């Protein structure tokens, strides 16, 4: 079977943190032919960058604050202070990191290096997921436009989602695929399956939210 991944399916596959990750992981890995489009990757890339920017920047700045505010050697009694100076969105993560990974007393420079290592590992995991997805996925680049189909979907589907659905439609036509299922977690797309199937050459809309795979 051939499937086409919507942006939330790519996010679900690449981010173990995403709530649809288990479904995406199990389902996508089993498929013989996986497709997506440039538009999907661009959307995924934007979201990924936002997440990394906020999250990674917080951890990096926290590490730099340690160098500025903490003594050269940090004793176990100062562990709470370390947690206190962490930005709120990473506080639980850093607390666990200090509890499980750090043997106090520790030099603040060594601690800085360890936090850097921690970031590399966390970020690296997601990129590896993406690389693995890319190795099994064909990226479709649509050049044709479909004004009639676009107008028919306009009353029910948002513009960026329409573009992605039409990417899938174009793929079926240009690659002469017999069947193509569309994998998504988007409520608007899922609830308008009938309209979409009537207008576009998409076989099934598979809603990640209701699949156990």
């Amino acid at each position, binding site marked *: 079977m051939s499937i086409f991944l919507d942006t939330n399916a790519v996010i679900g596959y690449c981010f173990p943190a995403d709530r649809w990750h288990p479904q995406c992981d199990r389902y996508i890995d089993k498929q013989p032919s996986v497709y997506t489009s440039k538009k999907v990757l661009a959307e995924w890339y934007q*979201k990924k960058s936002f997440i990394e920017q906020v999250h990674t920047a917080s951890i990096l700045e926290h590490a730099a604050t340690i160098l500025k505010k903490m003594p050269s050697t940090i004793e176990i009694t100062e562990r709470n202070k370390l947690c206190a100076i962490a930005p709120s969105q990473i506080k639980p993560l850093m607390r666990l990191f200090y509890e499980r990974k750090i043997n106090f007393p520790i030099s603040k420079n060594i601690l800085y290096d360890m936090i850097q290592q921690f970031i590399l590992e966390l970020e690296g995991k997601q990129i590896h997921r993406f690389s693995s997805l890319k190795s099994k996925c064909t990226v479709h680049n649509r050049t044709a436009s479909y004004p009639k189909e676009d107008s028919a979907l306009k009353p029910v589907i948002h513009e960026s989602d329409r573009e992605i659905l039409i990417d899938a439609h174009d793929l079926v036509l240009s690659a002469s695929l017999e069947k193509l299922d569309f994998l998504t977690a988007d409520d608007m797309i899922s609830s308008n399956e009938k309209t979409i199937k009537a207008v576009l050459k998409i076989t099934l809309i598979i809603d990640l939210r209701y699949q156990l795979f």
Partner: protein
Amino acid sequence: MILSKDLNKKSITKILDYKEFSMVDQTELFLDDEIGLHNDLIEITHNVNRFGQEYVIENDLLRYSIYKLLDTFDPKREEYISQIRFYKLLFLLHTDLKKDGVDIQLPYFWYLHGDVVMTSFLPAEVFRLKDKRGWKAIVPASFPSNLKIDSSKLRTINYHIGKLKEQFQYAKTKEIIKTVYKRAPYDFQREYKKFIILIDIQFKFKGITSKFWGSPDERLYDNQFDSLRATFPENDFPELYTLFLQWELFTKYQLKQIDRLPKEPTIVSINKFWKIFSEGLKFRCYENLPQWLIEHWRNEYPAKVDAYNNYLKNYKMFFYSKLYNQTDEFDDLSEVYNESVRLLINKA
């Protein structure tokens, strides 16, 4: 600033090519100080000429200083003073004089390879550049007679030019550049220069140092990164601070693994960061430049920061997929990490 000469554009592009996340504009490499300074001048002259606006510093102190400096260093008119040497000496003279209360209004700014004197803004009648196995600065045969200069200021200028001659008549240009760098507005500029020299040495003698002394590279790098971090002007460059920390993260890893990794991406990354820092430097650290030029530089800067940010994002993809060796050291923290990322996924 310096770094390896043994790179070619093709090999870099090949290594950095990562399908749609390919990185563009990789061609800038670290250059020898003098070549680099010359390139700075070409780039800036081109940049300024686009405006087609006339701007010349009308100051007799500057006219006199230029003439007297060249006349003192090249009294027999042998025409051997390179334009870079001339500009650097002029900068030293300007800063020496300012300390003594004399302002010759030298138009300059700080950039990639140190200070850049804006040639086209200097009074043209007291010197010219001659192409003679590289550009040389020369003076007209006769002294400009109609200059109005206070005699005590004249004495101060002569005194400082005499001191410069004593110190630098036979010095190499590199020595002069080193002295100029001591007057750089930020310690970070000096530390970055030291960092580049360190990388250059390590790359050139890769394998030799570790053969004799074990592996000293890591400690050296650590110390230099510590100094870079300690001197980064966070308050003046807040827009680059997080980017700097991210740059450090990747660069440090790559340098520590340089025996198994290609050095080209590291060089490109080091160059790129220096370039964006220098772009922020040029409209912050300058003297006697027209406001229209400063405004133009200031206005185009945010787009350059965005471009750097995009480069870093692409570089990150390349780094993790091609260079970084994943471990399972922190797997037991993945649940709580996922928790904090989940909140952001919903916001994104």
